[in-house]
């Protein structure tokens, strides 16, 4: 068991800066997810930690030891690859035994250990099959088993669930999380699926264009995104954004979004003082928008674009000022396209970002 520390890590491929001055800590026994869109440098970061790539700058510590110049085999990490990389010419047993065999462990110990892990992952019956004779889910378990069998200091996983069908993915998500907690192995998990990240992680590191955008617990990221990117990336459906300007009116601060104006409470004034005229972006999550069929005080009139029923709840797409936004409606409501509705944006749930640098103001 060990903690992992990454300091100022930078990796370039020619002109591309795949990983740009990345620093984060993973505590012992912690489950940390590296989350980001395609090409944001998650895999590269993981491969740097595993020792499959050499950093151009920065340091990597595993269990307090600087491992920059230590080959993968001596880092005592285990990795689960996206396509599992099971050795096709070996049986499941040999695949599981391989990490122990190359370390010249006694045969008896290997057999016992492999059987123990196989039982844990419920693959005892598959031990003499080849990888090609297994289903995707079974292969995934074998790959997991191969990583587990050695009891490594750190678990590295690169989108291990992305090749499974939706149902199995949801099932394995929970299994994996339970297993990690049960075994208490420090885990760094890469995914571009924010639902996966939110449900599994102790903490999430959000990547974008090789840079870390924010580090925090799932609830931190959801409630207090530090910039527009994180706000838009976390949550499904994504947060709605409106361009707006900060204005003053009779001692109140008012957000002028063109189609509507939002009067902000006094509590915000200390933060927003001297910011009159600032171009900002107003963010509000779909689940926080209230929808009414009749106008009320401080509602905004808009038109239904399309309705997506999810059974139990609905995603209502509405158009306002020529753009489409989404709201989540708990329960059921009968709405037709082009019907007029009235939305309310509760001030306590809004986010305000500086339009220039995307940083959160509130």
């Amino acid at each position, binding site marked *: 068991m060990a903690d992992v520390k990454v300091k100022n890590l930078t990796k370039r491929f020619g002109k591309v800066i795949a990983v740009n001055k990345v620093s984060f800590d993973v505590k012992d026994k912690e489950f940390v997810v590296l989350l980001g869109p395609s090409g944001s440098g998650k895999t590269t970061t993981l491969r740097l930690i595993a020792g499959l790539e050499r950093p151009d700058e920065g340091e990597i510590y595993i269990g307090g030891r600087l491992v920059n110049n230590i080959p993968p085999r001596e880092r005592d990490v285990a990795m689960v690859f996206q396509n599992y*990389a099971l050795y096709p*010419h070996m049986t499941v047993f040999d695949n599981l035994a*391989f990490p122990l065999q*190359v370390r010249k462990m006694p045969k008896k110990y290997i057999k016992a250990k492999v059987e123990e892990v196989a039982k844990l992952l419920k693959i005892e019956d598959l031990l003499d099959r080849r990888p090609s004779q297994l289903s995707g889910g079974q292969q995934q378990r074998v790959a997991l088993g191969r990583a587990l069998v050695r009891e490594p200091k750190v678990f590295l996983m690169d989108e291990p669930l992305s090749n499974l069908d939706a149902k199995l993915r949801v099932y394995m998500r929970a299994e994996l999380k339970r297993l990690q907690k049960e075994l208490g192995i420090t885990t760094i998990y890469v995914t571009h699926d924010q639902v996966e990240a939110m449900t599994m992680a102790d903490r999430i590191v959000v990547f974008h264009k090789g840079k870390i955008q924010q580090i925090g617990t799932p609830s931190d990221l959801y409630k207090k995104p530090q910039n527009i990117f994180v706000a838009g990336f976390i949550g499904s459906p994504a947060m709605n954004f409106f361009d707006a300007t900060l204005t003053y009116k009779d001692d109140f601060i008012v957000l002028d979004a063109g189609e509507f104006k939002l009067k902000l409470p006094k509590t915000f004034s200390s933060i927003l003082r001297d910011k009159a005229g600032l171009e900002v972006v107003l963010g509000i999550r779909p689940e926080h928008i209230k929808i009414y069929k009749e106008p009320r005080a401080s509602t905004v009139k808009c038109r239904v674009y399309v309705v997506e029923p999810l059974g139990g709840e609905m995603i209502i797409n509405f158009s306002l000022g020529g753009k489409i936004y989404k709201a989540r409606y708990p329960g059921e409501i009968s709405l037709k396209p082009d019907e007029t509705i009235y939305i309310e944006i509760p001030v306590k749930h809004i986010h305000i970002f500086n339009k220039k640098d995307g940083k959160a103001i509130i």
Partner: protein
Amino acid sequence: MKLNLTPYFFILPALILIIIFVLYPISATISLSFLSPEGYFVGFDNYIRVLSRREVINYDGILKGYFPMGAIVHNAIWILIHLPLSTLLGLVLAVLLQNVKGSSIIKSIIFLGMVTPLIVGGIIIRFTFDREVGVVNMFLKAIGLGHLVRTWTMYPDTALFSLILGSVWLWTGFSLILYSAGLAMIPKEYYEAAKIDGASSMQIFFRITLPLLKPVTTTVVTMTLLWELKIFDIVYVATYGGPGGASNVLALLMYFLAFRSLDFNASSVIATLLTALTLIVAIVMFKYVVRK
């Protein structure tokens, strides 16, 4: 039930060609090996006659350790030395050159041996081992073994080995190219997974790379075996089977029997034996490939 003949018309042209140019010559040769020169059936008489000739198997030479030992033995020695050497050399070079920049140039040069006509290859071998201009002798002089200098292909005890070594050079390109292609087909994740699993380079080679190259090895070994059995041109131009038959091989002996001794029946015996041997190799390989 009416037999549908249409498909057979489509394969008819190819079938006719195969019958005229492949099946007929083979069956004619085989039947010739069981006939006397006058055309009477003589059973295995020709086989007994040919196999007891000292050009084919020279028991005295085998027992006392001098050449010629007989063409069959020479072919066997050829296989024993050339097969492991050219296969291994190709594999080792392919692995070494795998991630080297500009390795394709080196590979192309080695592969030149493959694309050179064997007649030319044979002449090059002759010069390579020549006393005056040969690179082998220059090398020997350079490392202080000048007293060994001679035209290696002209002595019974070294002629065959010279040819075999020369043919290793000609043929290594084959296994090199096949192994290079095979290596390129192995996804790099297997190596990475093995590295993280804790395997050393040696363990990775023997437990991952080599097993995954097994289909390539099968192909290389089979094709090499067939080539060695049929070897002819190099020997013909470099030594003409000499001196005194010391580097003679089955295919060349077959040629001599037919066109020097004009003993077509004896020549057919050798041809039949060669066909049988190559067929065995081909069938074993075919079975292996089909099973995969």
